[in-house]
Every structure is written in C-alpha cells, then in structure tokens.
C-alpha cells in the first residue's frame, strides 16, 4: 500500500501513528447528560469579539432563547441552554486560566426542557447572504475545536470562488469519538448541512473525508447520500494529524493551502462534520446552538461515553456523570495531542470543547524525566506534517533567536500538532518552545 499511496499522492505529508484508544467509546451511542444545577455560559467561547448579553439578572429564559447578541460580523449570539433563571452576569474561570464575563443560568429542575423557542422555515429559497445571516443567528462555530464562527467561512471572500466544500470527518485525535458517532447517528443532518454550505458558497461539489478506521461512518454517509453525485464520501488513511484541514485537503484534492493563507485561496472551504450536522439541524427550525456532543474518556474515567451536554455545564458535573478513578492527575479539554489541560473543574463546557480527557498519574509524557540535549536524530523532521525543521527551531528557541525562527525557518507555519514533541527521544517540549517563540515575536512586533 505505501507504494500505491506514494503514486496516488495520498501520503505526501508525514505525521505519526498514535495509539487510538477509541475502542472504549466508539460503539457507545450519544446519551443526553442531565442538566447541572448551575450553567456558566461565557460570552467569549469563540474566535472573535465577545457576545453582548441581552438579559438581565433575575430574568427568566426559555430553552433556545437568545441571551446574548453578536458584537459585529466576527461574533455570534448565545442562546439559553435550559429553561431557567439568569442568576447573575459575572466573571467566570476559562479553560486557559483567564477570567471572562459569563451568564450564570440556574435551570428549573421541574421544567420539561422542551425547546419552545424558534419556528420552522423553508431554507430552499434562501439566498447565500440570507444563509450567512441565518447561520450567524444560530451561533454555530467550528465544533472541531477551533471555535471559529462558521458564518464567516460561509461568506465567499471578494474575488474568490469556492469550487469544493471539504467536510472533515477525520477525528484523528486519540480517544475522541464524537464526530464518529455524529456521522453514524446524524448522517442525514451532516449531508443537509453540507448542502447548505454548498449553496451559501456557490460550490458545485463537496467531498467528505473520513479516516479509514471509521468505515462504518463512511458506509452510513454513503447510504444517506444515496445516488447523489455532487457529494462524495472518501476514506483517507488514519494517521495523525489527518484531521488538520491542511493535511486533509492535500490528501483529498492534492492542494496546498498557502502559508499564512486561507483554504479559499485554493478554492476550498473546510468544515467539521459536527458543525455541519448542527447547521443541518438548526437552520430549518431557527434554532440556536445550545448543546454539543463530547467524549469523556481516558484512563482516569470509569464510565466513558459520548454525551450530549448543555453548553455551560461545569466540568466537575460532567466528570461526576462519567465517574473518575481516584488517581486522576490531570484533565484535558480536547484530545491528548493538542488539548489544553485545565487548572480548575469550575471551567464550563463551551462550544469548542470536543472532549474531556482524564489522565492518571502514570499517563502522559515522561515529564519528570530529565530533558536531554537534542541529539539531532531527525525523528521530528521526519514526522512534521508541515515539513518544518523542528530540531533546528528547537535549538534556535533555546538560544532565544526567535526572529530568525520566523524569517528563516517558517515558525509561523507550525500549527502545534505535537508530532515533534511526541517522537522526541530527548523529551524536549518542542511545541511549547514554539508557542513561546511565537508569543515573543508577537510581543516584539507590538512594541515596534
């Protein structure tokens, strides 16, 4: 197969094979998690300007009702995840340890929690501009983890045309199985959302790429697609980070997104399957994004699963539903390769959280080990999907030559997938070096 892949150009990038650990949850259907006694809805859970609250303390809200409005085009509204009462609008801890304004909502325990807000509409006659507005009104952002407002990506940039919509069903991060379950259980919504995106962008075709460790999802999507030829479902080799949009478009269409550019420069728009499933579901009923599917898994979890969770559910509540072992050492939002560890369980589940990974003492990299000097073994060079030279970048970072890293060694092309740190036999925290280096460069430019 490798020879064939080399000829067909399907393995033109590098990456690593990471143990998948998906077997614990990939066969577990999505279950709804009970409402927490208090939901915390941060006003900035997306990329862009924070939303502006339109409710006041003590106000009663209905599940699905808007509670905050978008602050401009690069922003989104928020909707009440439950019927209840706004307790207060105050600061709340975020995943990165920061404090941000949030709406505290106490659900009514006796309420039926039916979605009473919204009304059906015919989306067949909508113009692209109307679709963009309608998607902004749903408050949907990239659910794969980037949390970039989806309606912004649905607007074709001036002077460009989009010929293909690429739908990302790779889910290459170990442990996570939410996209897998969504493709199986909500195939119709995924395809529905894909058609909405094609229409908004004027794209004549779409390709759904799914890693070949989820062939049941490929089959489900193909069956739902029927005989339609404008949407194709393709399997791609399971290899981390196949789910990075740059890697996916390379494998599916042999196109490269230019450095520091957007996929639209090469005629593409890329969306995650869960994002499109939400649009396919919400748009026809004027709904808002109030819940999402997350995987709770990892060695520290006794009852792992895929849960439909109300946004704003504190991690502590979510982890209680999944029962943790008594050796938990750290809690990570997202997967083990790119996820961020949190310092507090008061942090809520937000729109960009695809999973909660619970690690035990002896899991995770050997952090307590001594960091050896770089022995120039080139393992990092061989795995970097962007074809960078992490070895040299790491040495330069140690010498604080941040500017040279950017001008001569393409530092800004690093998207922090973690492959280099994963394989480094010297346990050098390369990705962390690069994060710091980027930040140092940003600060230097800001001073200039």
């Amino acid at each position: 197969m490798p020879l064939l892949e080399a000829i067909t150009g399907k393995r033109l990038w590098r990456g690593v094979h990471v143990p998948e650990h998906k077997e614990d949850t990939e066969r577990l259907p999505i279950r709804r998690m009970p409402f927490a006694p208090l939901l915390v809805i941060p006003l900035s859970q997306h990329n862009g300007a924070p939303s502006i609250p339109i409710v006041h303390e003590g106000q009663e809200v209905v599940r699905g009702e808007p509670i905050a409005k978008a602050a401009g085009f690069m922003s989104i509204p928020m909707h009440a995840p439950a019927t209840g009462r706004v307790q207060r609008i105050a600061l709340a801890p975020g995943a990165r340890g920061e404090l941000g304004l949030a709406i505290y909502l106490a659900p009514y325990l006796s309420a039926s929690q039916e979605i009473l807000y919204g009304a059906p509409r015919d989306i067949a006659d909508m113009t692209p501009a109307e679709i963009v507005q309608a998607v902004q009104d749903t408050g949907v952002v990239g659910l794969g983890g980037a949390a970039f407002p989806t309606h912004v990506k649905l607007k074709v940039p001036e002077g460009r045309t989009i010929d293909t919509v690429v739908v990302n069903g790779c889910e290459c991060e170990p442990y996570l199985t939410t996209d897998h379950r969504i493709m199986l259980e909500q195939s119709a919504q995924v395809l529905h959302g894909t058609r909405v995106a094609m229409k908004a962008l004027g794209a004549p075709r779409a390709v759904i790429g799914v890693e070949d460790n989820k062939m049941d999802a490929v089959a489900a999507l193909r069956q739902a697609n029927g005989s339609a030829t404008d949407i194709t479902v393709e399997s791609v080799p399971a290899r981390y980070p196949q789910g990075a949009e740059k890697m996916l478009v390379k494998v599916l269409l042999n196109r490269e997104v230019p450095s520091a550019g957007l996929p639209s420069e090469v005629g593409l728009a890329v969306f995650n399957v869960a994002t499109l499933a939400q649009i396919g579901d919400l748009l026809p009923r004027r709904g808002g994004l109030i819940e999402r599917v997350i995987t709770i898994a990892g060695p520290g979890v006794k009852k792992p699963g895929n849960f439909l969770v109300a946004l704003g559910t504190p991690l502590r509540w979510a982890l209680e539903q999944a029962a943790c072992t008594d050796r938990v050492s750290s809690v990570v939002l997202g997967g083990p390769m790119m996820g961020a560890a949190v310092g507090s369980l008061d942090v809520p589940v937000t729109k960009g959280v695809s999973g909660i990974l619970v690690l035990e003492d002896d899991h995770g990299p050997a952090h307590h080990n001594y960091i050896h000097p770089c022995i120039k073994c080139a393992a990092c060079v061989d795995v970097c999907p962007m074809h960078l030279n992490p070895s040299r970048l790491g040495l330069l970072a140690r010498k604080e030559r941040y500017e040279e890293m950017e001008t001569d060694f393409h530092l800004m092309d690093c998207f922090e997938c973690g492959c280099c740190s994963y394989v480094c036999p010297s346990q050098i925290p390369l990705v962390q070096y690069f994060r710091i280096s980027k930040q140092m460069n940003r600060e230097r430019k800001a001073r200039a």
Partner: protein
Amino acid sequence: MSSARVAERVLEVRTSPHAHNAMSVEKIMRNVVFALLPISAYAVWMFGISAFFLLVTTTLASLATESAACRMSGKRSSIGDYSAVITGLLLGLTLPPGLPLWMGALGAFIAVGPGKMVFGGLGFNVFNPALVGRAFLQAAFPVAITAYTPAKALGRFTEFIPSSLAWPFMKAAPVTEWMARVRVDGFTGATPLMLRKFDHIQTDPWSMFLGERAGSTGETAALLIFVCGLYLIIRKFMDWRVPAAMLLSAIAVAEAFHLADAARYPGPLFVLLSGGLVLGAMFMATDPVGSPVTPRGMWIYGILMGAMTVLIRFLGGLAEGVMYAILLGNAFSPLIDNLTQPKTYGERRKAVAK
C-alpha cells in the same frame, strides 16, 4: 464517592501533547550498546584476551572521563545515557587488537574529553568522539596503530599480545618473535587493505566475510556487523538512509574505478569487506549528532563519506580511509543541513525584491 476525590485533587496543568511514543535517548543508546556486544564478543573470539582488555580499558576510560568532566563542570553525571559506553566500545573496536592498553586509555580520554565534553557533552560535539580519539592516536602513534596481528592466534585466550602490556611511553615488546610462534598457517599480521596496497596480495573474500583476517579489533566480521546494524534499523533506533547511502556510494565509486582499471583497483566486494567500511557506515557515520537532519542532507552526507573512503584508499597514501571520510562528513554536516532545508507545506515563493 470517587468523583468527590477529583474535586479535591490538585490538577496538574501540563502543555500538550499529553502523550509520548516512549522512545528515549537512553533506550536508543542502550540498544546501540546491545548491538555492539556481539561484535565485541566475536572480536574477543578472534583476537583473544588482548582484545577483551582493550575494549574494557577504552570503555572504562571513557566512563571515567565523562564522569570527571561532569563533576568538574558541576553538571549532573551523564554516564547514565550510555553514550560514553558506546564511544569507548567503538574506539576499542577500531583499534588494532595489540595496541598498548595505555594508548587505548589515552585515546578514550581524548575521545570523550576534547572530543565531546569540551563542546558541552552529548548532542553538542561536532565530530564522532570515538573517531576523534582514534585520529589522535593515529597522529601520535603512527607505528603502533598500524601494527596489526593475525586473527585466531594460538593461545590467544591465555596470553597477551606482547605489545598490549607495554608501559606508557616505553618501547613496546617486539611482536615479530611472538607472531612467528603463534601464527596459524594462512593468517597474517597485515590487513587485506595493506596486503593489497603494499604487497599486491589479494585476500580471500570468504575469510573477510567471516572476519578471519587481521584488522582493527571489531571491524573484521563484516557480515556480523551488518546484521547488528540491521537490528538497530529495524527497531527504528537508527536511520537507514545514511548507511545505505554510504555503502552504495562506496560500491558505485569502487565499481567505476574497477571498470576503468581492473588490475590496479579491486572490485566493490573487496572494498566492502576489507577494512572498516561496514563498521564505520553502520555505527559511526550513523551517529546522529554528527549527521544532518534533513532527508536530502542524509543522502548527500552518506554519499560523500562513501566516495571519500574509496578515494582515500585508492588514491591516497593511507591504506584505510573510513575514519577520515567520516570525520570529513561530520565537518560538512552543518553546511549540508543549511543547504538542504526541506520545502515546507504551502511555501510561497519569496517575494522578488523591488
């Protein structure tokens, strides 16, 4: 309830990635040592207790030098990473079995001291430390380091080669009389390269293949060295590109010479088996510290060293060229790295200057 304990626990906040493939410097180095052990054992079988004590001396001297250097610089001792063991073993394997032990110890000191620790230790040295030690000995003691003794000598497990036990800076006991006494018919004290270059005698390829020939302690058993190197490649402790490039380019250059003048220049098989080429290509050229990290760079580096080895042997004054070829490759490695930076994903053409 268990979930309550989660709330009580202090959470560790680490940076991603939260997983690692369990490869480590110690593991790589330990496996290189494992791969060198069969070669060392075979060397002792061929050359007896002199070889054994030479290997022990160079290894212990390497460890002692590394430990002392760490203590002097106030650093945590780095002998646990096994790299000093590798340097010591490799140095011993590249020296003639009858080399005075004190010279072996001195060579190991030079290898690890000025060759590695002065640069900052593992990862910072420019040249392969073992070869730095050997190059020093070659320059300082040109006679002793070319004084080879025959393999499979009689009584090699009970008697030292007389030169082994020479006192420092004293004239070594002559080995000619000893050699005449212990030499088995068909075995000589000159290496196949020397025999060809200076006496125009061709050595039987089969005995070279099995390592039953004179030569440096651990360089003779080409087949065994190849298999041990292959173990490291298959277990992914070593990159296959450098040895492949070096061996293939040596074969190609030798074949070109051989085709041009078969009477003067031996064929590729002889070139592969006669000296330290396989040991050098498998265990010294592959030292990651001195090699380029870019994929194209590795090929260029290997090709350069393979070609240089043959050119030194065929056109130079020395019988053997592997050591200088690798040291030269090490010297060129940073330059090769700079000139072969990979083209990145989505790279834009540099804007043309206005």
